[in-house]
């Protein structure tokens, strides 16, 4: 799907407002200054998504995902390089990890990452839906680690036979004196993407 400059700008602004709201909520939870920005948004067919994400396909990635439904349906997947995200989580929730064994530590890390991912995805999706006059319902979050092709394949498993597209938001997260690059992907059928873009066009026409 080809977007013109204004449509790309509008999608990027929606993503920036959504993730800035998420940063506000995260800062309250973690008592730290958090910034999240979206410098770039792309829309690509599913078969190009792994390449378009510009992440090492062999590197381990930590991913939190949530399905969404409403006028548009799909799955939102938030991904960060595994080691970066673990270091960040340790810096943010470090005090609660003191004295924990290796297994407990991993459990706390996963829980914390799922909660952080849940806040980012839900806030982001809620703002995008509100600004486009849509209603969105989110599933509970799931968490997985793996390489990029495995993660995308698993999350696309239920979409066999459907033409899928991905809206990719390149994200920059700054927290606990660290900066990490991540990706938020909205994996949706072509029909659902069209519904979302129809709403976007309606918004732009109203201005």
């Amino acid at each position: 799907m080809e977007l013109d400059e204004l449509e790309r700008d509008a999608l990027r602004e929606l993503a920036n407002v959504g993730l800035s709201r998420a940063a506000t909520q995260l800062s309250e939870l973690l008592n730290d200054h958090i910034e999240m920005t979206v410098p770039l948004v792309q829309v690509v067919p599913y078969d190009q998504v792994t390449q378009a994400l510009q992440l090492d396909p062999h590197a381990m990635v930590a991913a939190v995902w949530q399905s969404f439904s409403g006028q548009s349906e799909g799955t939102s997947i938030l991904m960060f390089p595994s080691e970066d995200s673990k270091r960040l989580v340790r810096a943010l929730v470090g005090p609660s990890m003191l004295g924990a064994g290796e297994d407990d530590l991993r459990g706390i890390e996963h829980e914390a990452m799922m909660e952080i991912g849940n806040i980012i995805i839900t806030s982001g999706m809620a703002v995008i839906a509100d600004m486009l006059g849509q209603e969105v319902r989110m599933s509970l979050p799931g968490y997985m680690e793996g390489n990029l092709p495995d993660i995308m394949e698993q999350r696309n498993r239920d979409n066999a036979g459907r033409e899928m597209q991905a809206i990719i938001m390149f994200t920059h997260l700054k927290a606990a004196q660290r900066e990490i690059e991540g990706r938020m992907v909205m994996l949706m059928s072509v029909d659902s993407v069209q519904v979302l873009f129809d709403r976007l066009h309606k918004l732009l026409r109203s201005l």
Partner: protein
Amino acid sequence: MKILIVDDSMTSRMLFKAYMPKDGQHELFEATALPDALEKMREMRPELVVLDYNMPEYNGVEMAQAMLGAGLKAKFVLLTANTQRTVVDSALAVGFIQVVEKPVNAVKIAALLAQVA
């Protein structure tokens, strides 16, 4: 009132413009980055400058500091969805009179204009 909005997003500037009252009382100018904003301030002398927080080179608070440093005075308002304490405090410390939460709507803009009138 002369108002300058500084935001790298065309959509955000369009939203702000769309929700401004159409009463002929206000003149809106736009800028996308610091050099352009400084030039518009010198040329147009706006009474109110509305700055986005999240911009590529300098954030809105840093831009206001640069404007003040260049001897350009106005009432500053920060426009952001990132309303965490540290951001709001940094804006107030520079002298911003208000932080307006994105996304904007007609009610928020009317309240802002009533406050600065």
